[in-house]
């Protein structure tokens, strides 16, 4: 008998009605809860025509939100890449006491809901917070300003790069790097010429996930940003603001740009997965 490699090869004939039923149910439920809400975003954004859509996007406050969101991503993602690679190198290439604990702490932000992260940051940097009086004396503004948004975004995106790169580095082992070392390569050369080519697609994917999250983060940012219109409003917060202003079409216009970005993220994911498989 041939091994069953093709999905569906296992289904015997008497189960065909059952399988059609299950496929139909899966498609129907997915359409209702995922596909229609996705299409609806573009439908509503363009409901009043492209002119109104463009007008909504070009609204100064929305444009400022786009700019601020891009700025936050441009700051946080490079930091994520550097630290994520450092942490992956540390955990994959050395053994030391507390290694597992360190990994747990790095992944902690995935288990803490964004609102709690925001509360933590407020209790740390807020006026009544741990460091609040010190910061006020030094006249440093962290909350309700760019630094706070950047810091809390770094918190929620902290695990992404390490999480994608680490398993690959562990699976590949360090023989190649050790060989390079015996041949006299410097640490930076080893990383650039040996390690990086092996992990580049995982790194790209981790960075893409981190940027998607940095752009789309809502809860944590909404606690620390103060949502000042045209100043500390990121694009997701702008959506809420427009929604509360009952400018639903405007909210959907802003949402459609984020949706496009999400679809691009998914496309990159598919491409990268194809690459890592062919590598």
């Amino acid at each position, binding site marked *: 008998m041939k091994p069953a490699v093709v999905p569906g090869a296992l289904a015997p004939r008497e189960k065909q009605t059952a399988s059609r039923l299950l496929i139909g149910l899966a498609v129907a439920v997915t359409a209702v809860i995922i596909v229609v809400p996705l299409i609806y975003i573009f439908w509503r954004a363009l409901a009043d025509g492209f002119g109104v859509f463009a007008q909504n996007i070009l609204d100064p406050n929305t444009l400022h939100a786009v700019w601020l969101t891009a700025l936050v991503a441009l700051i946080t993602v490079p930091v994520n890449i550097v630290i994520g690679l450092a942490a992956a190198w540390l955990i994959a290439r*050395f053994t030391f006491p507390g290694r597992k604990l360190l990994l747990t702490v790095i992944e902690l932000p995935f288990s*803490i*809901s964004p609102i709690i992260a925001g*509360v933590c940051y407020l209790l740390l940097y807020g006026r009544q917070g741990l460091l609040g009086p010190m910061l006020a004396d030094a006249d440093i503004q962290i909350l309700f300003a760019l630094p706070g948004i950047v810091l809390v975004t770094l918190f929620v995106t902290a695990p992404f790069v390490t999480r994608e790169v680490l398993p690959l580095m562990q699976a590949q082992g360090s023989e190649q790097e050790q060989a390079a070392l015996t041949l006299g390569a410097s640490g930076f050369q080893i990383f650039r010429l040996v390690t990086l080519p092996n992990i580049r697609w995982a790194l790209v994917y981790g960075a893409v996930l981190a940027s998607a999250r940095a752009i789309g983060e809502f809860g944590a940012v909404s606690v620390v940003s103060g949502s000042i219109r045209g100043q500390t409003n990121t694009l997701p917060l702008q959506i809420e603001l427009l929604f509360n202003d009952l400018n639903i079409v405007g909210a959907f216009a802003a949402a459609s740009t984020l949706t496009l970005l999400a679809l691009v993220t998914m496309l990159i994911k598919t491409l990268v997965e194809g690459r890592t498989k062919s590598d």
Partner: protein
Amino acid sequence: MTSVAVAIPRSGRTRRVLPGFGLTMGLTLSYVGIIVLLPVLALVLKGAEIGPVRYWEIVTSPRTLAALRLTVTAAAIATLFNAAYGLLMAWVLTRYCFPGRRLLDAMMDIPFALPTAVAGLSLTALFSANGWYGSILAPAGISVVYTIWGVAIAMSFTSVPFVVRTVQPILEDLDPAVEEAARSLGASPFTIFRRVIFPAIQPAFLVGATIAFARSLGEFGAVIFIAGNLPMKTEIASLLAMIRLEEYDYNGAAAIALTLMLIALILLALSNWLQSRMQRKGGVT
């Protein structure tokens, strides 16, 4: 050269062979310390400052209790739905070949890729009285927006991928020989599923459901759009924490946040325990 060979024994002491230990350790520890641990420490210290008596008063106040109850109930409903839907999707995506299967598979990533505020906006508009879904449901007397069902729907949307993506690889790796053996012994498809397949995927299924539940408890962006946020009725716990902050009631906010974090950490420990049990089981078979 011999000294290098000596420095690379089979186990244990490979630690300092490659360069960069100090640099990466320094970078990682300062990042983790400043970005992750210090803020969490601020919350824990605040909790200690509040003290157990005051903490208990805050958490058992009617409004907080109502918020916690709503959050847990809605998350439970969302998780039940996702457990069933996730199992169905994992099964259909691994076992059947049909046109559009890869597209359907890709759809499972939408809820993670889409910012939660966008999902919340779209679902709210769809289910509101003049939306596509709301206008169908309204004549039947069903209202979703501003009810616990709306909260549960938003929560289930954002946690869709967890069960699917944990069960899917296990189903793919399942040895078809075992099922064929069961079939040749005369087992019905339902019996095969119950006695052969489900025991194999059960640990992964429970891990996925646990993470989905944890995520639902913490969901904020998608929920606040659809919930209407009426105190005592459709106000979720994390929103109440945020309202307390806006009222400068830092103790109230910290107490609620601590409670949610504690539940999240318990669920994390539970899923880790389930995962380690899964790996031990996987090692045997």
